[in-house]
């Protein structure tokens, strides 16, 4: 049994706010992912949970008991460090049995446990190997064993970027192993796992907390954060996106609201925007389109508000030719570049908006038909299902720039 509550936790280093009033609840037996870019404060958060860093203010509760002032040892949890932190001067068995020794647990008991763990992790027979002799994957296992063997009543495992140091291929297969282990009947762990990889998070998490610049942006299941991102940052972090800005306009069609659109918010945004305002909904004009979004996805946005429409590149669809009856949720363009990526094809479709170039990214499952027919420089129509459009109140150009810049 372990449930973790963070209550208004803050931590700053000199003038830098690493964590800014974070409150989180991690449920018992939950696989909880903390997701965010480098420097978001993820590792600081983990170390506060583990008791390696004391928060400046706020409380850490384990099962509703305040443990803020307890040492890391007293919290009794398993912590796996980013580069594993295997003691370089001890062999595998000494590493794994370290916590048994410092707690004076029954040595015979420890011995059998260690043997079992070694067997489980395919490391039998390598007992006296030193950490430096092991491959990355094996080190990861040893570190995991060492962390697991420290657990007594509190079944809490903390993983700091557990797969980061591994080759890409190995990473994929180990994600599932981690999840299966955490959920296995014998262990039933509560896991807090930090990562900066969206896919890894989606793959293992029961719930995901997305943090950025020391603040929790959104907490939810993988589905929630993917389909109902709270803001542009979350939307962009979860996949490649296209975005358009425009004005929300109510139309007389019952239960529908209408978004009227212009152009990707680059420098030339203002000009395009001016043009777009007076245009009626059922335009026949080139290069502009109307997005029809179901009412339940519009939320608090009012008629006339400036809005930002986000569509994930893999929610975009593409067909050859430019025959569309209505420009509802559909845009005309030309395939600028295409790239086979294995499971997907990725298209960069160039729209011509008043002499300005705009690129829309479309990724669709690869088939041989696409390989042979969707060639570069062909005229295409790009469209998207209405329920997959994500609409935000327009956050302002600066915020967009801030979120989308490569830092």
């Amino acid at each position, binding site marked *: 049994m372990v449930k973790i509550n963070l209550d208004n936790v803050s931590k700053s280093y000199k003038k830098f706010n690493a964590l800014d009033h974070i409150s989180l609840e991690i449920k018992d037996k939950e696989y909880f992912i903390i997701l965010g870019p480098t420097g978001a404060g993820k590792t600081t958060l983990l*170390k506060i949970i*583990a*008791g*390696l860093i004391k928060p400046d203010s706020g409380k850490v509760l384990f099962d509703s008991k305040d443990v803020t002032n307890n*040492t*890391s*040892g*007293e919290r*009794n*949890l*398993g*912590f796996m*460090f980013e*580069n594993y*932190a295997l*003691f*370089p*001067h*001890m062999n595998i068995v*000494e590493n794994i049995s*370290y*916590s048994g*020794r*410092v*707690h*004076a647990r029954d040595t015979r008991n420890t011995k059998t446990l260690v043997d079992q763990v070694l067997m489980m992790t395919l490391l039998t027979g390598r007992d006296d190997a030193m950490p430096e002799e092991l491959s990355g994957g094996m080190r990861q296992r040893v570190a995991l064993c*060492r*962390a697991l063997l*420290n657990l007594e009543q509190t079944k809490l495992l*903390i993983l700091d970027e557990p797969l980061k140091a591994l080759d890409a291929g190995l990473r994929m297969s180990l994600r599932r192993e981690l999840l299966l282990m955490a959920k296995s009947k014998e262990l039933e762990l509560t896991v807090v796992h930090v990562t900066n990889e969206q896919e890894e998070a989606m793959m293992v998490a029961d719930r995901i907390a997305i943090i950025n610049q020391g603040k929790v942006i959104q907490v939810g299941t993988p589905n929630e954060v993917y389909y109902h991102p709270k803001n542009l940052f979350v939307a962009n972090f979860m996949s490649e996106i296209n975005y358009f800005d425009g004005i929300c306009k109510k139309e007389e069609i019952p239960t529908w609201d209408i978004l009227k659109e212009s152009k990707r918010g680059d420098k030339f945004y203002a000009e395009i925007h001016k043009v777009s305002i007076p245009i009626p909904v059922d335009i026949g004009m080139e290069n502009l389109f109307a997005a029809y979004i179901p009412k339940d996805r519009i939320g608090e946005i009012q008629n006339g508000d400036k809005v930002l429409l986000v569509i994930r590149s893999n929610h975009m669809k593409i067909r050859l030719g430019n025959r569309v009856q209505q420009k509802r949720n559909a845009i005309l363009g030309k395939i600028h570049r295409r790239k086979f990526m294995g499971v997907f094809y990725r298209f960069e479709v160039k729209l011509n908006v008043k002499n300005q*170039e705009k*690129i829309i990214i479309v990724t669709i499952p690869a088939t041989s038909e696409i390989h042979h027919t969707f060639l570069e420089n062909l005229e295409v129509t790009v469209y998207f299902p209405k329920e997959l459009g994500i609409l935000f109140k327009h956050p302002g150009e600066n915020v967009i720039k801030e979120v989308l810049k490569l830092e």
Partner: protein
Amino acid sequence: MIGETLKRKNLNVEIKWEEIQLPLSLKIEKFFSKPIYRKSLDSITIVFFVLVIIGPIINIFSTIFLNIPSISEDVFNDDLIGNLQWLNILNSLGVSFSIAAIAVAVDLVIAFPISIILTRYNFRGKKILDALVDLPMAVPTSALGFSVLLYWGIFGVEPGYTLIILGHIVFTFPYIVRNMKIVLEKADVLYEDAARTLGAPGITIFRTITLPMMKEGVIAGAILAFTRSLGETGATIIMAGLVETAPILIVGFRRQLELPSASFLAGILISISLILLFSMKFFTRKVGFPVKRVWPNIERFFSHKYFRYFRDALMMIILISIFLIPSFFILSQIFEGDLIGELFLGQDYKWVYLYASFLSSIEIGALAVAINLIFGLPFAFIITKRKWGKVITFLDTMLDIPIAIPSAALGFAIFLFWGPAGLGLFQPGFFMILFVHVSFSFPYMVRPIIGVLESANIGVEEAARTLGASNLTVFRKITLPNIKQGIITGSIMVFTRSLGETGATIVVMGSIRTIPVLIVDWVEANAFPSAIFASTLVILFSAILIFALRTVRKRKR
């Protein structure tokens, strides 16, 4: 879309390769980047190294070997005194070793907590404390020894065995703390964190995780301190009273021109130091610390924070009362006694001597820096960049010899090699002092440069080469700015070491006096106020240098 701009902008300037003239500096550098020039520089450097460092040491052993009859006559079967000389030598060795052992042991006990406090804790005034602990390394030992003499004089400690130990504790301490600090800063806190999450109490973490990682630094520091204590002369003369340590005996032999006895003793000292050095190089990896066994309950009990507070407070008190105050006690004595009358108005023009020896000290220091820089830089490159396998290992070990062996013995070896008894190229005096100083301070220049070269990123040099820079251009534009800190550190270290050296100087000095020697002379002549003034002067001067060094280091981060 990036790249579009570049395409759109039409380039009007067309360049033809044949017409391009490289600027002269690049041309010269390209020319001299040829392997042949590099090889010649390497050879010159190694010849220098062999002549200055290895030659005199080999020479002293061959001298002993060739002079076995006269040594046995002088040392073991003297007509007048029989084997008294040998008994003296044995006695002095015993004194020197016991002093060094005790001093290092005391230093170690205190250095562990202090180095941890200085690396792992954060508190106000940490930087000042850090600088104060480092400072005695830069101050001439004779000034330090004099300060210690005055301080313990208050408590009635007379010159002699005990006082020597108290003095040696003071000036060897920084070497140990410094080495520990370096390894502690390098050792990742990550491992200690990992042990904390696994439930290990503080003492257990220190013993099982931190200590093994500090191992090399602890051993290196201890041996360095041991050999420094073994070889120290200036302060020891001041504090010794009637006790004779080995270096004092060498100085004495040299003064009385008993060269066979002197070379015999110097040979013994050098051999022992070399054995220590090689055993350090060889055994450091194999020495194990007790990490397997754990006494959980006892260690958990003693890891309680009150014990920690008590220990830290105790160590701070010891640090202040045994190290810091004795080191700088002399500054409070400046107004005692009739300074003006003795220094400026005396019959013997003491101030003229002070001025002259201060100048000589600075001249010798500056020249030593310059020479060491010229040969030290290529030598550091040889050690770090050339792939000569065993040769590099050999040179690397040889490089530590001048640090490890007592400077009085090294000075004497050089005197024998270059002086009238050997090649006869130099007479005792300015150039020979310079020669000796270059020799024993060489590693102090090379080590920091090797340090920065090893940690310097080879990647940027490769990047520069892929961009079209020849090897020498890479050195000038990329490598040099990156290793500047190491060069400055090395230069200041060399300068302070040269400024502070007594024993080696006395052996080869002729009629010239350097500041530390002058202090020793004045103390021996009971001219305390003048000696205090001279000491204060060099302590302040060293403090400025250390301050400069730390600013340079800080800017690096």
